[in-house]
């Protein structure tokens, strides 16, 4: 486990979160209970000098909704500051991503908290709009207005 992984693990333990660590893939996995959606899988990938966190929407977007979800994601990403929404066009998987660069240094706990927590909290916020698109046939513009006001 490299020092970045040690620092991230220290944070996860400080929050008393249950997680798994795959040493071969340098990957932490956990499930977070959220508000707008029940829960989300969170993956924290540790690189040599970076950490990327992904919070996964539990529902894949079916093919006939991917166009409108792409537009929703583009609208969301235009206004977001910290991280961005992504969708895999092959299978409709949606996730929120944050990334930080940490070459030759150990990030402090506040920094890790910011990147990890923002990731799943922002997914939760924007998930509401996504669910409205998928299950209430809302347009991308209307769905964004629900989330962003």
């Amino acid at each position, binding site marked *: 486990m490299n020092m970045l992984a040690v620092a991230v693990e220290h944070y996860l333990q400080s929050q008393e979160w249950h997680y798994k660590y795959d040493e071969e893939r340098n990957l932490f996995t956990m499930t977070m209970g959220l508000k707008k959606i029940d829960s989300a899988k969170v993956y924290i990938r540790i690189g040599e000098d970076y950490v990327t966190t992904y919070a996964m929407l539990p529902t894949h977007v079916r093919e006939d909704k991917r166009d409108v979800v792409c537009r929703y994601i583009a609208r969301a990403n235009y206004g977001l500051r*910290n991280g*961005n929404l992504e969708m895999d066009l092959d299978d409709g998987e949606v996730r929120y991503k944050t*990334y930080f660069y940490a070459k030759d240094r150990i990030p*402090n706990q506040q920094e890790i908290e910011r990147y990890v927590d923002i990731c799943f909290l922002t997914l939760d916020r924007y998930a509401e709009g996504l669910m409205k698109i998928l299950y209430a046939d809302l347009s991308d513009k209307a769905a964004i207005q629900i989330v962003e006001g």
Partner: protein
Amino acid sequence: MNRLAEAVERSLRRRGWDYLRQGADGPFLVVGDLDAAGRTEMRVRAADECVFFDAKGRVRVPEEARDAACLYLAQENYGLREGCLIMDPEEGGLGCRAWLCAGARTPGAEEIDRFLDFCLMELERGSEGLQRALYGEEDWD
């Protein structure tokens, strides 16, 4: 000037870039020309213990092409690490943004350079790729 803004300014000076500081703590504006993105404005802002990078070029996606552009953005953004391509939903302006959260520390020049370079290179790549995706080999104009 706050320490993050100072760190940004040091980076810009080290690169020998002309810039405009638009306030006591920035944001900093750098203007230049890229091949595909054209005249590009890079804004770097230090606020809330973070540094935000925002590059915008001349590319304006016409309304009838924005659905296709959103698909292209989704494809390009999937897997990017440092930031993402963005498009103004009202005007179709293409951009690239990234951010770093510094907290109580002062980021080094290499870190700031990394995000500056990412924004400019990705905007250029995205502009070229989007043009090809929408119009083949034709120019935007």
